[in-house]
């Protein structure tokens, strides 16, 4: 062969023997109404009746795969990446392939059903579609008459999608705002950006980044289809630094893993800010020209000084007051002037007398505020050494293009992640690490590439969704006037913490209709259950066109709807027709697809038509996407002054005009509750599901099942062995499942997967223990306070 020296890996034969398929998946069946055998018939001989269909996979994971499917004898036989798309974008994942089994799962909802036992008991009888839709209609009308239209709420999870229904029914809705926006809440105001904290540059741009700091996200699992952007960046020489309490998959692939105490990422960032300030590593030219750092603050009030009217809306005109009236100290003139008059000569530091008021610059204010947040202080809070924090700060500020990636699924699920986002924006404002190749901030989920605007099917003006004063996750505590829930997917399991309290609210509801694919937790609370089919099944040829990560992708029917399920569009239309508003919808999903394509200026410009999409196997790359998307390249931001505005004057009353450290609600050092419940509990995101979706896929279950993972040290001290049944509990409730020893888990923590189905653990529900605290800063945050699922303490004992 070759003369190369081959190093043997440190594996023994034992390594290969001990890991196989994770046992038989003999899990409790959903009930007598499920089970595929009778519906699907026995195995057929392989025959020549085989066709290839190019389609797309479900959207919520953000992987947006374009797929090549083999359909044989009316069955999905193979799912591969679409081999006609650019190899860079050609992908499928473990979940996508698992659809070969998952689509035909015993856990599929097969027929419309009506509850016959107590709510939550899970006893149903099969009814016809006509009867089910009529019942839904009767209940909606009853609620409208009794309470008004705003008493109906549509809670939307992964699938299905019912875009038009809230407006048509005049009900409120939300892909619930309590999750995934925690960090974005704090980053958005500085640039007028996305409340989800979407990355300012596409992750393909990370190959140009020299220092990439990732915190609070395990993106090699939760954004798996963009893993190449991470791996390519590392290969190109980017130093990837991951902050995570646990040795996650992403931490394991990074250049450097920095273990931090759960929910303390903001302290790490605040330490970095101080280091950059103390060592003058900031970019003065950028700060002077493109940020509010030279603006003057009235020291007494904390308000920014202005020449004209006070900041806000002019009461007479109803228009915003002039954003040009903010003042800076012109060092050349020795006077306060509007900032546009002293772009190059504004003082960044100092204390000034302006019309008898004592004024300081925004930078001066930050410096004073940061005195309390030294690297040594940060070490005490987050557990990373002061030297490490300083080293990361130095690299971030001086080591070339740098990117702060934060995320969803980790540190954003505490009571106060807005501080992370805000502190991150302070770092960007100080360094100018934005708007340039390899520089940016935000989450990298889904890659954050280019998109097109599709034609929008307009409903007549009278149709508008209701707006409620109370956010849905607060319904168990605060009466939102909602009495009917239209639940799309596993909403109760995913969007509400503290399940025992939630159950009380669920019991108080007049009517619940659950619309979904699988027999997941939310089903058992429903009064009526409507089965929808997967995106592989359809009644029309095309029911979705989607703008997907630098591409336009088209769905194409592979097989007929299984069982008595229907495509989500068809179910939405049935409900609309029942309520007398069906005429405002397209007749079919395909009519909508054609409309969206034919009425899109973007598509017209690029010559993308339905015929072209069909000819191009359901996927077309958009024009001009060779260079990664980069936002704010002109350094004009979507703020009133078009500058970065890291000082949040409006948040002064809640002590967050600057990012100020605040302990988590429950998981913090010194919480007396920790004497009873010493372990922090995390529900982590996993490659094995997309929130609640794919939990029933046996081809995924074969690799791993939900467990409670603990560090072996915490198991030893509790007399727990790997594989033992354990109970995790706190004052809110408990659940039981199998314990698994994993060195990757931080001592003092325990973790399981997010949005698990209770039927796949031994007893109870993981949401029984989770924290539903509402940060009092709620009203200041663009989307309200996040649900602090991971800000939860428990104790674990052998069950």
């Amino acid at each position, binding site marked *: 062969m070759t003369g190369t020296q081959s190093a043997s890996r440190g594996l023994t034969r034992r390594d290969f023997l001990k*890991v196989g398929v994770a046992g038989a998946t003999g899990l409790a069946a959903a009930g007598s109404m499920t089970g595929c055998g009778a519906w699907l018939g026995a195995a057929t001989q392989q025959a020549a009746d085989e066709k290839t269909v190019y389609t797309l996979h479900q959207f919520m994971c953000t992987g947006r795969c374009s797929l090549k499917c083999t359909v044989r004898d009316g069955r999905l036989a193979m799912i591969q990446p679409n081999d006609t798309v650019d190899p860079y974008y050609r*992908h499928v*994942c473990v979940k996508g392939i698992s659809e070969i089994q998952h689509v035909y799962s015993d856990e599929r909802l097969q027929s419309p059903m009506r509850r016959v036992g107590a709510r939550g008991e899970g006893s149903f009888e099969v009814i016809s579609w006509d009867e089910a839709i009529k019942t839904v209609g009767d209940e909606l009308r009853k609620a409208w008459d009794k309470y008004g239209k705003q008493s109906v709420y549509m809670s939307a999870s992964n699938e299905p999608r019912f875009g038009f229904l809230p407006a048509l029914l005049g009900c409120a809705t939300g892909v619930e705002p309590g999750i995934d926006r925690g960090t974005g809440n704090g980053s958005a105001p500085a640039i007028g950006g996305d409340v989800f904290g979407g990355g300012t540059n596409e992750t393909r741009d990370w190959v140009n980044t020299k220092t990439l700091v990732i915190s609070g996200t395990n993106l090699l699992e939760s954004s798996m289809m963009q893993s190449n952007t991470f791996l390519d960046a590392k290969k190109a020489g980017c130093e990837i630094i991951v902050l995570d309490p646990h040795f996650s998959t992403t931490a394991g692939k990074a250049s450097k893993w920095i273990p931090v105490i759960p929910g303390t990422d903001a302290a790490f960032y605040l330490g970095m800010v101080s280091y950059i300030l103390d060592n003058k590593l900031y970019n003065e030219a950028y700060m002077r020209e493109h940020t509010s750092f030279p603006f003057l603050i009235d020291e007494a009030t904390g308000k920014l000084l202005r020449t004209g009217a006070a900041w806000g809306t002019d009461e007479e005109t109803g228009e915003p007051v002039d954003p040009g009236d903010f003042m800076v100290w012109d060092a050349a003139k020795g006077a306060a002037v509007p900032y546009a008059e002293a772009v190059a000569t504004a003082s960044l530091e100092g204390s000034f007398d302006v019309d008898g008021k004592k004024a300081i610059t925004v930078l001066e204010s930050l410096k004073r505020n940061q005195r309390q947040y030294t690297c040594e202080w940060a070490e005490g809070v987050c557990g990373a050494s002061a030297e490490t924090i300083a080293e990361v700060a130095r690299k971030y500020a001086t080591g070339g293009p740098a990117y702060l990636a934060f995320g969803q699924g980790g540190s954003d699920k505490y009571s106060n992640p807005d501080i992370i986002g805000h502190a991150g924006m302070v770092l960007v404002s100080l360094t100018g690490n934005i708007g340039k190749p390899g520089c940016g901030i935000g989450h990298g989920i889904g890659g954050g590439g280019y998109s097109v605007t599709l034609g929008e099917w307009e409903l007549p003006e009278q149709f508008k969704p209701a707006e409620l004063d109370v956010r849905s996750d607060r319904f168990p505590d605060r009466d939102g006037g909602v009495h009917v829930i239209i639940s799309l997917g596993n909403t109760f399991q995913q969007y509400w913490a503290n399940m025992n309290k939630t159950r009380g609210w669920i019991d108080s509801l007049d009517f619940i209709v659950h619309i979904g694919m699988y027999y997941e937790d939310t089903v058992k609370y429903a009064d009526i259950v409507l089965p929808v089919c997967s995106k592989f099944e359809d009644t029309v040829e095309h029911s979705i066109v989607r703008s997907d990560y630098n591409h336009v992708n088209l769905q194409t029917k592979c097989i007929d709807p299984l069982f008595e399920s229907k495509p989500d569009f068809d179910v939405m239309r049935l409900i609309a027709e029942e309520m007398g508003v069906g005429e405002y919808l397209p007749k079919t999903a395909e009519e909508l697809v054609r409309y969206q394509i034919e009425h899109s200026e973007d598509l017209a410009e690029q010559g993308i038509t339905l015929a072209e999409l069909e000819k191009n196997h359901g996927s077309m790359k958009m024009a001009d996407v060779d260079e990664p998307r980069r936002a704010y390249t002109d350094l004009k931001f979507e703020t009133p002054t078009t500058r970065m505005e890291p000082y949040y004057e409006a948040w002064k009353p809640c002590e967050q005009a600057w990012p100020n450290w605040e302990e988590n609600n429950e998981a913090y050092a010194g919480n007396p509750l920790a004497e009873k419940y010493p372990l922090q509990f995390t529900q982590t995101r996993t490659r094995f599901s997309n929130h609640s979706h794919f939990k029933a896929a046996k081809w995924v279950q074969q690799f791993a099942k939900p467990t409670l993972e603990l560090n072996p040290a915490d198991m030893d001290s509790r007399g727990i062995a790997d594989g033992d049944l354990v109970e995790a509990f706190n004052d809110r409730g408990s659940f039981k499942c199998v314990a698994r020893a994993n060195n*990757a888990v931080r001592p003092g923590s325990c973790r399981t997967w997010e949005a698990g189905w209770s039927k796949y653990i031994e007893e109870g529900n993981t949401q029984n223990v989770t924290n539903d605290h509402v940060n009092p800063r709620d009203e200041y945050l663009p989307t309200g306070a996040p649900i602090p699922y991971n800000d939860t303490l428990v104790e674990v004992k052998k069950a």
Partner: protein
Amino acid sequence: MTKLAIGINLDRCIGCHTCANACKMQNNVPDGMLWNRVITEGCDAIDGAVGEYPNLTRTYVPLACQHCENPACLKVCPTGATYKDEQGRVEIDYDRCIGCRMCMAACPFNARVFNWEDPQRDGDFNWGDARVPVRTRGVMEKCTLCKERTDAGEEPMCVVCCPTHARVFGDLDDPNSELAQLRATKGKDVHILLEEKGTKPQVFYFDE
């Protein structure tokens, strides 16, 4: 001569198990069996870590038949069912397999799976590539290097589906192939599993 093989870039493997399911799908592998799986090196279960917190390392190692040059399985097969074919692949003639499982015991990589019972497939359907023969109870099976695909000039399904492009397929005897060049140039970054067993695996692993 031809010596087909796969090289796996361990730096790019993120332990996602897509290759395992790609193989299962393509080859109609029954419930409870896998021809290809991803091991977390040195750990009892997937996604563990070696060492003590926080001094940890983790390496994912995808594992299937190593298509050895000197296969231990072949030597012990009493019927000649296991053979080395002209493409350099280790294959099983299912009709000649008598289910004695000598090969299973001999393989140092535990790469073989046996149909102890009538194969079960959730949904009662033969999924995958119609060209792949259906195996019966009492027959041994394992990675064929996607014989039906590679005979037709296609890449193995695990290579097609790997989302991080960690897998390279090719002919080690073709010095111009990417695979042969990787094998030749990666030097000490090439890893051979259980080299001391002397089976000379053709499948190899490498660092970026």
